[in-house]
């Protein structure tokens, strides 16, 4: 198929960006969206132009590196996937596709379609861990039984890939689904209890400091999340936060 791509081009974080149109031809419906971008870039390199910079790596839907706002949706029109898993069979010959970077003040553009997601790193550093020495001299793993239900629920929360689609699709640019998932994972496990109150307070404080907005229960984040992280995690984070502050 032949397509018109409207792509956000921006030289660096201080430059002004603009939409630029490109044509690509002979795109196979079996290609992934990123492979289609490869075709465009090969074309640009061959004609002596600078290729479009975009983030990507594993191309298996797990590293969380790929982003892209496609036709107004994070990771494009399909559900439960990252951009690398989006296939061109979702589009039609002659389509015009609009491709933009994640839109959020806390994710400044680095170049073209690449944004800086370091805010997520700093939130994790504020408390997204269990303070255990890495010596290996811990108790035997089976001396701490965990119900299958709790382990499965913690796993569902831990499945978050940190891509930022939740932030990008939220009208308030809220990071609550991401932070909620991390807080939930540890809140559901016995290992995480000791520092639970400090963890949620510190992570929430860092989240606010980074300039993410608040949750107004619109639910767009859950819809666009490639890993189906549930809004329940936000509710759990709020409960944990309240509990932490009531306890003092």
């Amino acid at each position, binding site marked *: 198929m032949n397509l018109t791509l409207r792509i956000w081009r921006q*030289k*660096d974080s201080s430059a002004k960006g603009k939409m630029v149109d490109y044509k690509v031809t002979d795109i*196979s419906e*079996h*290609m*992934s969206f990123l*492979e289609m971008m*490869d*075709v465009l870039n*090969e074309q640009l*390199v061959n004609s*002596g132009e*600078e*290729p479009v*910079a975009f*983030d*990507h*790596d*594993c*191309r*298996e839907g*797990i*590293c*969380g*590196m790929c982003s892209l706002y496609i036709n107004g949706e994070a990771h494009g029109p*399909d559900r*439960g*996937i990252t951009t690398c*898993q989006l296939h061109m*069979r979702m589009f039609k010959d002659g389509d015009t596709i609009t491709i933009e970077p994640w839109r959020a003040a806390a994710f400044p553009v680095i*170049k073209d379609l690449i944004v800086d*997601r*370091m805010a997520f*790193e700093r939130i*994790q*550093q504020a408390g*997204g*861990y*269990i303070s*255990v020495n*890495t*010596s*290996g001299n*811990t108790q035997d*793993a*089976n001396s*701490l*039984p965990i*119900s*299958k239900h709790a*382990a*499965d629920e*913690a*796993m569902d929360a*831990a*499945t978050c*890939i*940190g891509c930022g689609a939740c932030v990008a699709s939220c009208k308030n640019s809220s990071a609550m689904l991401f932070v909620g998932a991390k807080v939930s994972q540890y809140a559901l*496990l016995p*290992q995480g209890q000791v520092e639970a109150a400090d963890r949620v307070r510190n992570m929430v404080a860092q989240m606010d400091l980074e300039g993410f907005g608040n949750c107004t229960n619109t639910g767009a984040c859950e819809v666009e999340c490639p890993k189906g992280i549930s809004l329940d995690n936000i509710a759990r984070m709020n409960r944990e936060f309240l509990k932490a502050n009531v306890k003092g």
Partner: protein
Amino acid sequence: MALDSKVPEGPIKDKWTNYKNKINLVNPANKRHIDIIVVGTGLAGGSAAATLAELGYNVKAFAYQDSPRRAHSIAAQGGINAAKNYQGDGDSNYRLFYDTVKGGDYRSREANVHRLAEVSGNIIDQCVAQGVPFARDYGGLLDNRSFGGVLVSRTFYAKGQTGQQLLLGAYSAMNRQIARGKIEMFNRHEMLDVVKIGGKARGIIARNLITGEIERHSAHAVVIATGGYGNVYFLSTNAMGSNATAAWKIHKKGAYFANPCFTQIHPTCIPRSGDYQSKLTLMSESLRNDGRIWVPAKLEDAKAIQQGKLKPTDIAEADRDYYLERRYPAFGNLVPRDVASRAAKERCDAGYGVNATGEAVYLDFASAIERYGIEQAKIHNISNPSADKIYELGQKIVEAKYGNLFQMYEKIVDENPYKTPMMIYPATHYTMGGIWVDYNLMTTVEGLYCIGEANFSDHGANRLGASALMQGLADGYFVLPYTIGDYLSHDIRTGKIPTDTPEFDEVEKEVKDRIDFFINNKGTKSVDYFHKKLGKVMWDKVGMSRNAQGLTEAMAEIKAIREEFWKEVKVPGSANELNPELEKAGRVADFLELGELFAKDALNRAESCGGHFREESVELDGEQKGEAKRDDVNFAYVAAWEYKGEPADAVLHKEELEFKDIELKQRSYK
């Protein structure tokens, strides 16, 4: 230089304990004055960085991604082995050691593998303490499953996302140390060379990938943990950015490169569908626990399927060839990866492949769904369940075990694998070869260490499933933190290493000159053009099976591609900005040298062995007829190559392998 493996004396089961009791320690107050650089922050680098920081050293960690959480370790699906014997099925440290040495076709170092088995249990304890949500059974205890090449259930898992969860565990341990200021994290930085002072590794030159700035970083020791070189094939299961540059650069600065030809071809990947394809997607080997692999028994059925005239469900049970179960009754669908891959290729080469390209076999879950369905009906007291009910109940169980893998398959192939068998084909996956290291994980350059997939040490000629994660974490959490201390105990009076020295000047100049060359070269062809060309030679002549003639041709062809690359490569943009084409150019330049050494090593090894199948070396008769033939008399050694300029001029050093605790035997999975 003669190779000294520095394996400690004494009985194998006591080596590591005795060694740890005798090494020098660094006083905690002195650790604060010692800097360590860790390049790469996947499972090996991440766990090493966190642990070294925990011990008190100042760690500088480097990753080309925006976050350590994106390292390709994250994509490992199936699980991690540990000899916990929780299942009571006869597992032990010795058995894990034995399975790994045998699975690696007796080309690994016994002492290293035994140590790996010894610390495997600790890894699980450590990860659970960090909050890794491993699968649990209904009693709240850890669940296990089994993997190819073994007869016990020793694999711990977190759905089909074990690598992700283990990496996030190591990453969280890193975050704790970053918050404490003990790890200085350099995201979006790429190491472009190592700096040696007085023969010792004392720093690196790195490029800030956002600004293009070339930076000098010094340390008392440098640890390379940058993963494998499977992308030398262009198409592989590795992430797009996975590269060999750090490893190749240290090779050029004196670190020997061992067994480059030992590359694993993973049997269960989604087949390639066209020339535009950028990478291959692996489906976890754990699927072989429940999936049965087959092709049509009749050639005419296979042809009809290839032409789209028949569907797999049209083929009667009696007309299917479950070739692994037929050839290897003891291990069946769970034979090791090299055996499963070769068997698939053999059937496809004979014309029995099941997709349009003829390069695919079926992985079928119908009988597992039925088996689980009947079991569930009994559990739920459903008498005389209909076939549909059985299917529905069974599907739920399969979904719980492999749901995300099935979803991934469906998204890529656009077929529902619950209804129709998956198609799979072997693809380049993990590299067992890598930088040569001694028992301390030190390379042939003093103070330069190499851990995880980037080194050669533990998997021999073939890696068993669920062992990569084990080695990465063992090296990072539990081995390197001890061995590096012994070395650094001599550095407590050294003081800060300055970066304004002639050694740093010189290496920085080399790095900058190369970047300038790429930016200014007036070539006509893109970097990917050369990478794809290299990949084709590698797959055709240095791929799943190799012969002397093809390898000789490959060496010459790769050399020619390299020469053309340096004349014709074109890199748009400038050096002082985010420039992905420039990053790729440097990496492909290194692959173009590594590829030739790879072929040279494969040519030298005139035996079939694990991931290296030489067509000239096959069993001609007896029970093992047609199987790969190893040659222990002439090739029971590690081939460690010393850099001498052109890859073709590399000099071979042999580390003879001694097997004192395990008898060298023909591998049989029959």
